[in-house]
């Protein structure tokens, strides 16, 4: 497989277990290069685990994770360190360093991974903050920022090293409609203008479907379906339809498996 093929990321037969429990069971996922791909599914279905497998923060129990032509589980520590420079991750929490100001948060990966002089680090930090509209917030501390601003600073930090692959973990959670719109626009802009491969892990259907070129729906350790948002909306698979249409009950039951209610409340104890 070459780095120039159509897929930036390929998971082949990936199984991931926590103890005896399988989070993923023999999963195949191919993420097209230069596109926005959404990975969707109900909370707790292992979406973040998937992202961490791609970011090489976790190793699969079995199978291969290819990123830009390299099989991650086979790489040495130093090769992984280099590979991570090609990947930016926007974590759900934003994960800003609370004791560093906005400037130093964005400068952090540049200071760790490069030997650039301070003046060039400053140029790049200002460029990235300008891209997310927060150059004026350079001296603020994270606790002075709104939730939406925190996420944009985290995005500026995630693109500081010009990654080829940008991963977003639940980017829309807890965002007001304006902040959400700003993020959707930024994800699309960065993807299209810079040719980045974007992976958006989310359970927010409307936003993700509106932005993604291609979607995977995961659940029960499997890929339940894949296709363009339109194809999935019209899927014959009742589980996918339930998820895409947001109905509370269906093949995925509203109730987590539980003992009989009557027995639980009124049964002899």
């Amino acid at each position, binding site marked *: 497989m070459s780095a120039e093929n159509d897929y930036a990321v390929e998971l082949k037969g990936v199984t991931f277990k926590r103890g005896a429990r399988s989070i993923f069971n023999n999963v195949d996922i191919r993420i097209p290069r230069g596109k926005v791909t959404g990975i969707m599914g109900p909370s707790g279905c292992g979406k973040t685990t998937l992202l961490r497998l791609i970011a090489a923060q976790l190793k699969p129990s079995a199978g291969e994770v290819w990123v830009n032509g390299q099989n991650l589980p086979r790489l040495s520590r130093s090769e992984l360190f280099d590979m991570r*420079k090609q990947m930016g991750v926007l974590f759900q929490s934003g994960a800003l360093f609370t004791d560093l100001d906005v400037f130093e948060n964005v400068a952090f990966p540049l200071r760790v*991974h*490069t*030997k*650039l*002089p301070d*003046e*060039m680090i400053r*140029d*790049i930090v200002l*460029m*990235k903050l*300008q*891209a997310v509209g927060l150059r004026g917030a350079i001296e603020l501390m994270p606790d002075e920022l709104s939730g939406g601003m925190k996420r944009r600073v985290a995005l500026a930090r995630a693109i500081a*090293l*010009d990654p080829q692959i940008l991963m977003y973990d639940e980017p829309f959670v807890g965002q007001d409609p304006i902040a959400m719109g700003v993020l959707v626009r930024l994800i699309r*802009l*960065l993807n299209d*203008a*810079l*040719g980045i491969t974007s992976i958006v892990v989310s359970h927010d259907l409307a936003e993700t479907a509106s932005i993604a070129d291609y979607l995977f729906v995961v659940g029960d350790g499997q890929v339940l379906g894949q296709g363009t948002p339109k194809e999935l909306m019209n899927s014959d698979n009742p589980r996918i339809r339930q998820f895409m249409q947001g109905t509370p009950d269906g093949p995925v039951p509203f109730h987590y498996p539980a003992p009989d209610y009557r027995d639980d409340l009124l049964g002899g104890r």
Partner: protein
Amino acid sequence: MSEASVSLGANGELRLAGVLDYSTGPALRAEGQALVRRSESSEVVLDCSAVEKSSSVGLALLLAFMRDAKAAGKNARLRGLPADMRQIAQVSELLELLPQEA
């Protein structure tokens, strides 16, 4: 390791070539600064037409050389900005700050 160079052209232009990235950036910065100082022409033309590939580092280099030129009381102009540098400049709303040749 990527390869890149910066040199002074026949007409006093600063020619950037190769791959401008995090590994080549620091040396290019130092060498380019010395060349701008040494150049005797009244204008610094930053010629990017031999740049093969560039990350944000390439734009930070251009900005740094523009500051050098300004400090030396010289005008700076850009020539041959490649597509990838132009895209990064666009996302960072930098294009209008870069004096490009028509």
